[in-house]
């Protein structure tokens, strides 16, 4: 189970494993091949007739060959029909699963909205129902982890947070935050339904995140400020990225690369404009109090609110320094917050975005234009992408995998499925995937830099100059 890739999106409502899609494609090709072979065998069969053989006293073996050909033609028809029938069964299963997922998601979102609306009136009861000690312990542990402090994570908590059902519930819960805020503000439920995600979308998760930023600011949290470059260094690069695993590996890890959060590769070829690959790191600190690190929780909330936070500003500045203009073709690749920032940049329309790849990004509610080929990779047992809400981008290729299905959870990590090494595993599986959705997306991303003469790579480090300024 943990090596199965679930593929959805690509403009279709179908959801299925890479293996199922690959089998359906094989059957499709087999049906076409059988049809062509039937036509060719019929033509061969028509060259020599039994009448002709009889008239010239042809060899008996030639007449027997004619009989074999008749049988072969009939069998080719049978192969074609059989392959088409099985292909139909697989397509129907994928469509059915997709509809079931969509239906479950709609019900979940509606339920989350209703629950969000009721949350404030039910809050005292809910709190009373939870054992106070356990609740306080879990909250303290979560806060310590979020603040980057060492903490022993109880195995039971890791297991609970890594359940796909928990992740799905969190995703639905995120979609209900706007309803909860509207209920708090006294907005009647029917009006909230019209304004929320399931209605006009005037309110929604972005509005809820904006409200959170506003409320937090008064308590000294989530206060943005201007960013400035603090360091830049050249990076060794041998050529364009080959596959998803290589692409993920080029995203900088600030902890091991002197704090660099953004890498820009520039591809030059005589006679055509320079092209750029931009790689964006994930969150460096989850401290809700904005510090000099722009890749922090404040930028995460800003991304959710659709605002240009410190991380977004840093990438835009790195691109400017690297020579990206408003007509330069650009591809974005990001991990976690970097993926959400990449999605924001692609959605902004400010750049000629020709490709987007995200790994574990909370970016479901960031609407990427249909014209941008996008691949979004999420683990179904990773809580972080769920914080971005349900996936709106049905034209993107959505690749999902349950990392710890039937596998032991590692100790000392609160959300192990979000770890980059497990996304590297998934990327490796994607590189050997055979479904046309993944293979086509990979080919499209790689064609961006084909035929390049020179490539340079620069890593950039940014700091927030004056938080709250």
């Amino acid at each position, binding site marked *: 189970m943990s090596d*199965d890739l679930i593929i959805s999106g690509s403009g279709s409502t179908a959801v*299925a*494993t890479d*293996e*199922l899609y*690959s*089998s359906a494609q*094989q*059957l499709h*090709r*087999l049906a076409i*091949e*059988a049809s062509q*072979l039937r036509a*060719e*065998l019929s033509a*061969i069969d*028509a*060259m*020599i*007739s039994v009448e*002709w*053989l009889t*008239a*010239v*006293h*042809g*060899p*008996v*073996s*030639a007449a*027997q*060959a*004619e009989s*074999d*050909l008749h*049988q*072969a033609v009939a*069998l*080719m028809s*049978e*192969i074609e029909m*059989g*392959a088409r*029938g*099985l292909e139909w*069964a697989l397509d129907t*299963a994928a469509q059915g699963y997709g509809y079931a997922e969509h239906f479950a998601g709609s019900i979940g979102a509606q339920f989350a909205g209703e629950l969000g609306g009721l949350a404030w009136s039910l809050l005292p009861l809910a709190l009373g129902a939870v054992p106070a000690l356990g609740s306080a312990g879990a909250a303290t542990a979560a806060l310590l982890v979020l603040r980057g402090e060492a903490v022993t994570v109880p195995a039971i908590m890791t297991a609970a947070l890594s359940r796909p059902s928990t992740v799905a519930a969190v995703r639905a819960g995120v979609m209900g935050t706007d309803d909860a805020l509207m209920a708090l503000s006294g907005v009647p439920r029917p009006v909230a339904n019209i304004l929320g995600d399931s209605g006009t979308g005037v309110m929604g998760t972005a509005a809820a995140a904006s409200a959170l930023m506003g409320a937090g600011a008064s308590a000294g949290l989530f206060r943005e400020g201007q960013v400035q470059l603090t360091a830049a260094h050249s990076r060794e690069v041998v050529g364009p990225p080959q596959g998803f695993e290589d692409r993920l590996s080029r995203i900088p890890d600030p902890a091991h690369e002197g704090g660099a959060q953004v890498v820009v590769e520039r591809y030059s070829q005589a006679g055509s404009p320079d092209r750029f690959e931009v790689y964006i790191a994930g969150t460096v600190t989850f401290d809700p109090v904005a510090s000099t690190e722009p890749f922090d929780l404040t930028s995460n909330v800003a991304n959710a609110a659709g605002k240009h936070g410190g991380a977004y500003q840093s990438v835009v500045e790195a691109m400017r320094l690297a020579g990206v203009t408003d007509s330069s073709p650009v591809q974005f690749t990001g991990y976690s917050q970097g993926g959400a920032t990449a999605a924001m940049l692609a959605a902004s329309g400010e750049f000629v975005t020709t490709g987007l790849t995200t790994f574990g990004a909370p970016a479901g509610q960031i609407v990427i234009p249909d014209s941008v080929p996008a691949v979004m990779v999420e683990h179904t047992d990773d809580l972080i992408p769920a914080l971005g809400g349900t996936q709106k981008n049905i034209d993107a290729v959505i690749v999902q995998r349950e990392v710890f299905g039937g596998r032991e959870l590692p100790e000392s990590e609160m959300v192990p499925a979000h770890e980059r090494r497990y996304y590297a595993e998934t990327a490796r599986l994607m590189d050997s995937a055979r479904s046309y959705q993944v293979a086509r997306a990979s080919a499209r991303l790689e064609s961006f830099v084909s035929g390049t003469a020179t490539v340079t790579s620069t890593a950039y480090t940014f700091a927030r100059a004056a938080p709250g300024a």
Partner: protein
Amino acid sequence: MYPPPAPTPNASLLYALETQERQLDVVLMRLEAARRDLVPAPANFWRGSARHTYDAGIDALRGTVDAGFAAVRSARYRTAIAVADMVERDALLAAGGLTARVR
């Protein structure tokens, strides 16, 4: 009907049989590739009766592809025998030792 390019009926049939043999060689290679590459493996993506039904369908399809391959291979083999017969018959006709022979 295949247009006879040669002046005698035997030569026309021999030419047609040789052409058929060559074309069946190509079909056989394509069919072998299809049998190897285009028949999916049994499913890992389903469980229970759905998996059983699908796998039975794949097994039946593989059997039909095998039967198709066997029919084309047999047609090609018998065509080759017919070609050899025709060549032998032509040789005997040229030597004046045969008026008609059917094997």
